[in-house]
């Protein structure tokens, strides 16, 4: 097993009397992109803030590069962070916003111009005040800010927010390249499609708890069975009669946590004609993601659905 560049060990946090993060453990290894997936309010941001030393956990330990973030002497040179692209002074010019941080972490100011070019903010955009930036431009500025110190680790909260499809593709390539050169990326998102194309490892959180985590291929292939029938009621009845828990998918099918053969026999016993029967592929993960983002609490059956 590779070393952990980012490690969350049993992190828990209570805010305003509500448990926001509950026993969250995961690790990110060098050369990988980890997608931190879950709906808004699931505890992603709170977890990331604990990793970045902005919030003290009630329980558990968060380490980056093997130490607590606050113990890094000049953290900007080792960890690039984008927690909120809107967190910039509106009255400051884009280039100046980067230059201030460059000065703080002793980075040559020439690197500011390099990065502005890299993220596609041209001279006129760099001269404008951040107040006039679109959300997409702020995200680009935020990414430039994260990369400014030439870090080994990137921690990005919803970096794809506000980016157009072309911008998202660009960001994917950038992060893929960063990881391929040995960097470690942890990025959060509430949308599966934003991370599935880039993440090697997925950590899925709902209601403050981790509901699933694993390699992308592992999670996306799943072991459940996807089944469709024109007579849905009969199918539900047949599956229930056989004692097989089923979860409805968005397109009218069902995911069953059982081998296709058992599902087929259940259908045969219930005298239901199947229109489709096979391994669930990514359907389980998509379903989980969909249910999480719809605000439906992820019960144990959902967790089962993607295992």
């Amino acid at each position, binding site marked *: *097993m590779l070393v952990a560049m980012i490690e969350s060990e049993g992190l828990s946090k209570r805010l305003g009397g509500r448990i926001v993060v509950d026993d969250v453990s995961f690790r990110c290894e060098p050369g990988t992109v980890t997608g931190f997936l879950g*709906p808004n309010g699931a505890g992603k941001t709170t977890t990331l803030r604990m990793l*970045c030393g902005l919030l003290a956990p009630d329980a558990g330990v968060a380490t980056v590069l093997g130490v607590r973030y*606050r113990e*890094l002497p000049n953290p900007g040179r080792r960890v690039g962070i984008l927690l909120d692209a809107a*967190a910039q*002074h509106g009255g400051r010019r884009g280039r100046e916003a980067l230059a201030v941080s460059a000065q703080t972490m002793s980075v040559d100011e020439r690197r500011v111009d390099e990065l502005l070019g890299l993220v596609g903010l041209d001279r006129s955009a760099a001269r404008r005040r951040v107040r006039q930036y679109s959300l997409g431009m702020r995200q680009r500025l935020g990414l430039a800010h994260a990369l400014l110190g030439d870090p080994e680790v990137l921690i990005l909260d919803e970096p794809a927010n*506000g980016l157009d499809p072309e911008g998202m593709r660009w960001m994917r390539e950038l992060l893929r390249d960063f990881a391929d050169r040995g960097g470690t990326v942890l990025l959060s998102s509430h949308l599966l499609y934003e991370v599935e194309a880039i993440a090697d490892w997925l950590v899925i959180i709902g209601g403050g708890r981790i509901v699933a985590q694993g390699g992308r291929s592992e999670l996306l292939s799943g072991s459940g069975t996807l089944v469709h029938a024109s007579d849905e009621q009969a199918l539900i009845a047949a599956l229930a009669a056989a004692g097989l828990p089923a979860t409805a998918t968005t397109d009218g099918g069902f995911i069953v946590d059982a081998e296709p053969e058992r599902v087929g026999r259940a259908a045969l016993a219930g005298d239901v004609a199947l229109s489709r029967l096979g391994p669930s592929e990514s359907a389980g993960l998509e379903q989980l993601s969909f249910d999480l983002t719809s605000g439906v609490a992820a019960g144990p059956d959902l967790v089962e659905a993607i295992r």
Partner: protein
Amino acid sequence: MSTATIVSPRAVRAAGARPGLARLTAVELRKMTDTRAGFWLLVATVALTALVVVVAGFALDEQDRTLRRILSIAVQPATIVLPIVGILLVSSEWSQRTALLTFTLVPDRTRVLIAKLLASVVLALVALQICLAAAALGTAVAAPGTADDWSLSAGLVGQVALYVVLPMIIGVGFGAMLLSSAPAIVLYFVLPTAWSALGSLEPLEAPARWLDQARTMEPMLEHAMSGTEWARLGTTLALWMLVPLLVGLWRVTRSDVRGRARQPDRWRGASRSGSIPPWGRQAQRHDSDPSRSSTCARRSSRSSICATAP
């Protein structure tokens, strides 16, 4: 796996030293001047200083046109405007939420606050130089040419320097204590004024002599202060400077930087409208670009993201 095998202590050291206090102070000085508000406040200070010196040159009686007298007038704009710069230096980190960046780059928040205080002192001393230059110029032009014109003891210059520096530090204290620009600026001006008004009433006359900034700071510009006057100034500063700074230090080191939940003045509308996340509101508030304000609507049609904003 133990942390020792993941990153050796040597690697941590090699990754770059902790930014020094001089560097952080320079950064904070830069932050005071590179925003639109900060820049214009400083321009206004210089312009007002020039203006009051010109007015003093004309309006003062001839025998009053001395360096000491003109300097005591020249420093007034700086002592009124610079504290606002000091307040904004701290409070804007929260209202603009740049504290997220500042504190991820420098996790030791006490050091950041110390750097802000040092930067404030430096800026106030620069302002003092400008006031001295303006007052000297005014004296050269307007003074009647008697021997007293240029008399100004080193002690008095020191008192005038404190007169300019102290309000700036009080401003930083108010900014840190309230962590919100508008309330900090309003209270910074209203509380001492209200207290001065109350202090003129008979029963409060005695404490006012010790705690009213306007009264205890006034002798600083007039003459070398007596021991009692220093004691009164010290008492005033304990109340108006030390208390805000200590409360501010406590709040700065403890406060959640997120700023959404704890900044009702900024995000109050979010719960009312319910469907727009903070960044969406911000995009709309400052928006001149129509493609941006539609961000949230576009997203909300895809799923319930907007409705589940924290």
